């Protein structure tokens, strides 16, 4: 496989030959060993999530060797003195034993919990990267949908895992889960009785959550991650716009040896950081909370961060409840539990299709958009982040009210208003910023950049010399693609094209116009050495001339 005089060392050649004889792996390797992976820091975000999941699998498997998923009553007589003689569930007792009587047990528990947080956080930021760069566009819609499913499943995995230790804090989460489930119209009380095996809390929920947590949910996650990776491999990575990068190529480093080694190093970094967190940053010290008892609660209890937005929306909600005949619709539970999550998850899942419908853009896209060049998308993204962020912040409004010394009710009212007004403001601001940045790009291409060289003209005026932007910078900027228009096709008799006819067609056309409004065209070549007034250089130029 290599140059004439070099040969692959015997042991490797032997094994690979054996395998190739049997499954023909050579053809696959020939195509893929030097597969090209483009480089950009933001492409690592998804990897963080992937490696966290591997750490979750490793640490979680260790925990299963010692954890007893049982709600049977027992009395603690172990090595943690403050809880000796106290009645508790087997699950809580075994969690204490993992923490105090198994070497490395506390470490694995804390690594598992930190890895869970990093897993979800990594996925969220990765998803934002894909969203803002438009990497979800054709042909990658399927992978985007898989991503949305993964995020949902990760929340489910976190919820079920958090409930397992059966301490007072995890019980509070479980109680809220029950309160939400039972509030569902028609099926609520039945679903609760099925899940809990009768009345809350019963004796079944922890073993059942355990099966979901260690088998069903991770199984599905693993399958989806595999599919995600295969699709990524087949479709190849997207790349940022830049010199020599086109829709038809991939520019970067080869899988073997550079990308492989880098990926290995990132896994080790992720694992190493998680091990460091598990060592030095205490998380979920269950022994401090005591065993679960539905009659008690520890004040100021906070869920894991990814549940914060649900907590916040429950807190924001005014007390609405309506009775229809002899039935009750507890809107103050159903709305906050389902609507924000529904908006976010459905919105995420549908966005690629919505955008494609509005732009009519059926082309393949392999070069990423820079967020500024798709202002509507970017602004919708920021509006979404603001919506989520307000809910998330309000999930700890009790802490906020203490920290800023304002009344709790004031924080709630602030949140009720901000959750509606905030996203609108965020949309408008980010829209302006995108347009401003586009102008700046157009300016750089049109007039070049300030060289820092000041020249004195014969009549005494000082000007600064502008030079064209460096080639690779210019290439980066030139990566901008025009957003397609649905406008054009009106035939000679004035009948619009089929796609924009009728009421829905009009809506579509209007959205399309909004999507394209303020698209700043890039214009080049106003002399390669332009001279600008030194005072206020460059500022007197409108980009759209």
């Amino acid at each position, binding site marked *: 496989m290599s140059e004439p005089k070099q040969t692959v060392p015997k042991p490797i050649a032997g094994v690979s030959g054996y395998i190739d004889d049997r499954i023909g792996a050579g053809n696959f390797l020939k195509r893929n060993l030097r597969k090209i992976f483009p480089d950009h820091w933001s492409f690592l975000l998804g990897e963080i999530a992937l490696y966290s999941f591997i750490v979750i699998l490793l640490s979680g498997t260790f925990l299963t060797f010692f954890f007893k998923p049982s709600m049977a009553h027992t009395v603690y007589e172990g090595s943690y003195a403050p809880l000796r003689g106290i009645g508790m569930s087997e699950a809580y007792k075994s969690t204490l034993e993992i923490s105090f*009587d198994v070497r490395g047990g506390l470490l694995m528990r804390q690594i598992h919990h930190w890895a869970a947080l990093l897993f979800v956080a990594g996925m969220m930021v990765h998803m934002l990267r894909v969203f803002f760069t438009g990497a979800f566009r054709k042909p990658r819609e399927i992978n985007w949908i898989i991503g949305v499913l993964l995020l949902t499943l990760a929340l489910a995995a976190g919820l079920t895992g958090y409930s397992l230790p059966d301490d007072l804090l995890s019980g509070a989460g479980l109680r809220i889960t029950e309160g939400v489930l039972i509030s569902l119209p028609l099926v609520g009380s039945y679903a609760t009785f099925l899940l809990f095996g009768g009345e809350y809390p019963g004796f079944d929920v922890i073993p059942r959550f355990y099966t979901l947590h260690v088998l069903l949910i991770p199984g599905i996650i693993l399958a989806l991650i595999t599919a995600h990776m295969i699709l990524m491999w087949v479709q190849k990575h997207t790349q940022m716009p830049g010199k020599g990068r086109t829709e038809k190529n991939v520019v970067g480093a080869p899988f073997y040896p550079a990308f492989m080694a880098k990926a290995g190093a990132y896994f080790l970094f992720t694992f190493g950081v998680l091990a460091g967190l598990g060592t030095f940053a205490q998380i979920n010290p269950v022994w401090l909370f005591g065993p679960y008892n539905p009659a008690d609660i520890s004040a100021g209890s906070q869920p894991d961060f990814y549940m914060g937005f649900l907590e916040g929306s429950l807190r924001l909600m005014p007390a609405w409840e309506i009775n229809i005949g002899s039935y009750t619709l507890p809107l103050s539970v159903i709305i906050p539990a389902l609507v924000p999550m529904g908006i976010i998850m459905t919105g995420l899942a549908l966005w690629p299709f919505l955008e494609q419908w509005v732009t009519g853009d059926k082309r393949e896209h392999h070069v990423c958009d820079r967020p500024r060049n798709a202002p509507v998308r970017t602004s919708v993204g920021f509006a979404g982040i603001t919506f989520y962020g307000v809910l998330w912040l309000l999930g700890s409004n009790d802490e906020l009210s203490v920290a800023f010394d304002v009344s709790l009710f004031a924080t709630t009212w602030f949140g009720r208003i901000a959750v509606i007004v905030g996203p609108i403001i965020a949309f408008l601001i980010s829209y302006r910023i995108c347009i401003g940045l586009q102008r700046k790009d157009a300016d750089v291409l049109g007039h070049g950049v300030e060289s820092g060289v000041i020249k004195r003209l014969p009549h005494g005026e000082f000007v600064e010399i502008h030079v064209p932007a460096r080639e690779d910078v210019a290439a980066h900027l030139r990566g901008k693609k025009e957003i397609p228009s649905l406008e054009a096709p009106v035939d000679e008799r004035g009948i619009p094209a089929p796609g924009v006819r009728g009421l829905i067609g009009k809506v579509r056309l209007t959205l399309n116009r909004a999507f394209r409004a303020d698209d700043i065209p890039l214009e080049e070549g106003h002399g390669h050495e332009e001279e600008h007034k030194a005072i206020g250089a460059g500022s007197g130029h409108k980009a759209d001339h």
Partner: protein
Amino acid sequence: MTEHDENSAGWRSPKRVVGTPSPAESRYTLGQAEPPSPKTPVIEGVEPRDEGKGAERVVALCFLITFLAGIAFIVFYVMFQVGTIEKAQISNLALGGTLALALLALATGVTVWVRAIMPKYHLVQERHPLVSDEATRDEVGSTFLQGAAESGIPKRRLLRRTLLLAVAPLGLLPLVLLKDLGPLPGTVLRHTVWGKKTKEGKERRLIIEGTGNPIRAANFNSPGGILSVVPEGYEHDLNELAKSTLILIKFRPEELKAGTNKNWTVDGIVAYSKICTHVGCPTALYEQTTHHILCPCHQSTFDATDGARVIFGPAARPLPQLPLGLDAEGYLVAKGDFPVPPGPSFWERGDAEAEVRAKGGHA
């Protein structure tokens, strides 16, 4: 999926004139021309690094650290036993510290190796349209139709319909099987053990949570005090506690307003359900000066002097009040169940408060 490996061809045969600037030189510093590279790349897109012993030594040092940290982990595993809080924490520090060090040092080593020893890459690989060509599509299409025709599915209606019929119930089996996960709710959500006499046929006493002691009304005399209370005989029954736990507050009689049923109080002592009517957290916080009961979960706030009506927050209904009385020995007992189901709302609950009021009761 076909992929050419132009890049690996290019990798062997130099195309670029030696000495011209490499396309790999791309650090984005606005507007500055870069000095020409002193290196002489041999293969397009693969730019060797300066051979320096320095980088290799750094990498080797990192690998050595990992080796030592790995050994230390094993040593510490044996050396530091666990069994108390302090010991567990020391062991945690020792094991976690060495594990983190080993992993991070290895990661650093490999990164330096990639960045300082392996070449700098700027390889280009062609993309090919993902869609298969027209001929292939047509062939797959006709193969599909041919196969379908051979199977007989399009023609044989009876076969098709009975197949659908056959699988329909099979799809339902898993759902049916799940039924035994739990019993049907029936009316258990509407009642608590407070409505039942004890085994001895007496009225059920109120027990202070945690201590197991009954409460003599005369001894609970500090106005503003609050107690968490559980039903006698069910002190450790979590299912019962999840709906029957009470808070007990003592008021001066003139403090109580119309919302509180004074007939259900004893010497100004009032009992409300402790289970929040929002989603069921224990409403454990009490502000003495304002007489507000506060739920720590989503901050629903109830006025304890006025039938625990909601003042703020997402809870939509007051905390139900329990009728209190005294037994022969002067202990607080329940005179009956809550007039309405306690805890979170559910579909079949209906407007239980209105029903009670319609019957002339207090809720």
